[in-house]
């Protein structure tokens, strides 16, 4: 059996490959868009932010006098 460059298998699988390609491209686009949104709206505090204010903060007594 002769093997052609464009075998029948390639033709049969074209729609499947095209569909999968489009899905993957869409997924990449979605992750990119999601990343942009998360970074731009990233007002949420991150766990590491707390380290910038390291050290113990002791609230002064509101009433009474210091001994």
């Amino acid at each position: 059996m002769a093997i052609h460059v464009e075998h029948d298998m390639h033709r049969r699988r074209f729609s499947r490959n095209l569909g999968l390609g489009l899905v993957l491209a869409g997924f990449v686009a979605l992750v990119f868009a999601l990343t942009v949104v998360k970074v731009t709206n990233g007002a949420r505090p991150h766990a590491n932010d707390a380290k910038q204010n390291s050290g113990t903060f002791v609230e002064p007594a509101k009433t009474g006098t210091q001994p």
Partner: protein
Amino acid sequence: MTDIRSFEHHHEAQFGDYVQLLKPRVMSLVVFTALVGLLVAPVSLHPVEAFTAVLFIALGGGASGALNMWWDADIDAIMRRTQSRPIPSGRVQPGEALAIGLALSGISVVMLALATNVLAGALLAFTIFFYVVIYSVWLKRITPQNIVIGGAAGAFPPMIGWVAATGSVSLEAALMFMLIFMWTPPHFWALALFMKSDYGDAKVPMLTETHGRRVTRAHVWWYTVALVPFALALGFTSIGGNVYLAASVLLNALFLRGAWKIWHQDEDAAIADGYKLEKSVFRFSLIYLFLHFTALLVEAGLRGMGGI
């Protein structure tokens, strides 16, 4: 084999066959209810986050559909209604369906958790687990109450949508869950009454086969009665209102009337008129659910405009 002839079998799966594995018709219901759950929530997501959330809730539902088809391939091959599904018809290999189901489950859970929050991802994971393991593998073949329990899987999407937006489960989310959960049994049993099924051949215990049609008719009525309080209660929560309540009272009255007629319908009369009543109640039940969720959307729209 390295010979190219090994690729020449004719039942090669096309892209559409893989889409069929995800049960697109079920996915459309999941998309709608999840979207409503997300939109009526008091916290609004960025449109991209909301789109991602609904997409992956739907994909998670689709993944559980693929896993269900993988597990049920033996009974799907027996029943006429399901013989043309991708696996029994030979277009997709069982192993492919399993791989796709597992991979999409993982992707959808992780993506939902990343796009919104971990609780929403965990709920989606539980939904997939519930539908595949608790319903498909465990209960579907051993109890005629399978429809009741299976309904829980279909009831989770609006709750997941709500949790995706708010980050927590609330009374509103629980009542949206209960609305679909309690609606499922009368909806499916109305269908079971007029659909000449071959569940018996496949050894799946359906109520019509195990307890008879008379008992099934009574079940349609009593489960509809049990549904009504949950449907109405949603109207008194923060996402309800006058529009929802008016729609719900009317829809529940009509559903109750239909269920009552089904209960008192004579079997011979039903056969004589080709199950006209059962078919109309089944169709109405779809409208019932659709309009309840549409009414919730209307209420959210009115709140957004400051109308109520």
